[in-house]
């Protein structure tokens, strides 16, 4: 096992970085989109059940199935992997952003308007910072979940550590089959733990001391 890793260390490290990179980009785009959708939902409250249903049903679609559905549209490669990861990543962020915006005290919003903030100002300086702890928790969940989804997305030759797992599966019974599967799995867990640590740090830096739990 040690020898197996030592021989391939450079490649494993590269794939781990690729894995993290895919997740990072997908979550980033997903977060922006999800917050934008949540702002619209917050404006038209009737959309709230729709948004909640979408995020609930979306999460029940097996990621393998989504990869299959996307394949004819976006072909084999990184783009399909990215779209697949981003789709799942957006769901927890959307759910939390809707809840987070709804929790912002109406009187604070009125007082923000009362002192002369524009609607955009109210969003950027009051709503978003106050909803941020909840949204941030959603992003954190999303990062964790996306680590697993990215592994599946490797089926369409997406980047990352998922490739090792599939190699392990196709070579089942072979000499290195277990090694591949273990490297893929443990690698993803390690990357996920590091990413969570970074998310924790991000929370420390971006959540105002005045509202931190």
């Amino acid at each position: 096992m040690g020898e197996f890793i030592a021989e391939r260390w450079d490649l494993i490290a590269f794939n781990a970085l690729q894995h993290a990179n895919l997740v990072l980009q997908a979550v980033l785009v997903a977060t922006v989109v999800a917050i934008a959708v949540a702002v619209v939902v917050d404006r038209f409250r009737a959309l709230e059940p729709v948004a909640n249903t979408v995020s609930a049903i979306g999460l029940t679609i097996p990621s393998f199935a989504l990869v299959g559905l996307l394949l004819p549209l976006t072909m084999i490669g990184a783009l399909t992997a990215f779209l697949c990861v981003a789709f799942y990543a957006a769901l927890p962020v959307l759910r939390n952003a809707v809840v987070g915006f709804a929790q912002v005290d109406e009187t604070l919003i009125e007082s923000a308007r009362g002192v002369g903030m524009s609607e955009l100002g109210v969003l950027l300086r009051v709503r978003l910072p106050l909803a941020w702890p909840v949204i941030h928790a959603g992003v954190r969940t999303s990062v964790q979940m996306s680590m697993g989804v990215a592994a599946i997305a490797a089926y369409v030759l997406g980047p990352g550590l998922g490739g090792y797992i599939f190699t392990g599966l196709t070579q089942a019974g072979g000499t290195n089959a277990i090694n591949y599967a273990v490297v893929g799995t443990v690698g993803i867990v390690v990357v996920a733990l590091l990413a969570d640590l970074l998310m924790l740090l991000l929370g420390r830096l971006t959540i105002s001391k005045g509202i931190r739990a």
Partner: protein
Amino acid sequence: MSETAPTDGTNGVSGAELRLEDVVKKYPGQKTPAVESLSLTIPAGEIVAFVGPSGCGKTTSLKMINRLIEPTSGTIRIDGQDVREDSATSLRRKIGYVIQGGSLFPHMSVASNVAVVPKMLGWDKQRIADRSDELLDLVGLDPDRYRDRYPRELSGGQQQRVGVARGLAADPPVILMDEPFGAVDPITRQRLQDELISIQRELRKTIVCVTHDIDEAIKLGDRILILQEGARIAQYDTPEAILAAPASDFVADFVGSGSTLKQLSLTRVRALELSQPTTATVGEDTGPVVRRAEAAGDDAVVVLDDRDRPVAWPWLRQVRSNDRVRSSPRENLVTLDEAATLNDALDTMLTAAHSKVIVTGDRDRYLGVIDFEAVTEHMRKTEREAAEREAAEGGSTDG
């Protein structure tokens, strides 16, 4: 004040005249309008209290002034200018807005909360920092201690003070207050009212204050607007006139009968003569202080800080036990503003150790001490005068 708005040259008034002309607010789907037709002139530099039972339209009327609620018809003018000429956001930046509990932004520090409007107006950093320190000082919070704190680290009264500072930040000529002191305990409320009166003496803004508490209205208001359902004016006059001659049964019921006790809330502490006991400055040698106090026959000494603000009120024996006069945190000492009512004074004395209370003026500067006898003497005098008046009128009214 380094940020005083251009004044009109008379008595340092920095407020602007506020005029409501046939203002109507009708909500769709409601039979009766929330505000039927309100016409009103509020002179520059005065505090007008809007009072009335809940649902009478007082808050709606207030919010139409800064267009948080748009009137259905009618015109509102500030210094003759229609409020609709400007965009709603730029209008609101020129009108201070203070609401119950302060409604501070919990994710912003005290200083950032105060600086919200100046920042939107594009002031430079140094000016904003100086201004928020100045305002914190004005509302009685030590800037060094409080500027970097967050709202949740403050008491209700302190939050409300920051709320007032935020309303004053850009030195607006008009300030709207919606139940400003509704969320604090009675003692803090009284103190905050005193402070507002003291601040207003200095700034002379035009302040509209919505309250459901007639005592607060009597205390704060240069004039009181009593509203009935549909924001119909039941009476609009000075507190004295309203107490002396209620315009209708509705007003009479609302203010309560004009008893001597009610009159207590009309008389300000400054109307009475203050006694001047021995004072000492923080850090002074106690020897001479004790001798001065003994010569004057005082059993306690008022300790002042370098800005002439009272900080402690130790008994003589406590002073004797130290070499130098000591200070203690200013917040712990209960004082009254000279504009406090006799009602407040009695209230405070009943709970104080000295059965006397220290009276302060602008920026908490020491003025003197008022004692129980002075208040009761004044009460007896008022009662005697009232009785004489009633005898002269032949007792024809039943109150």
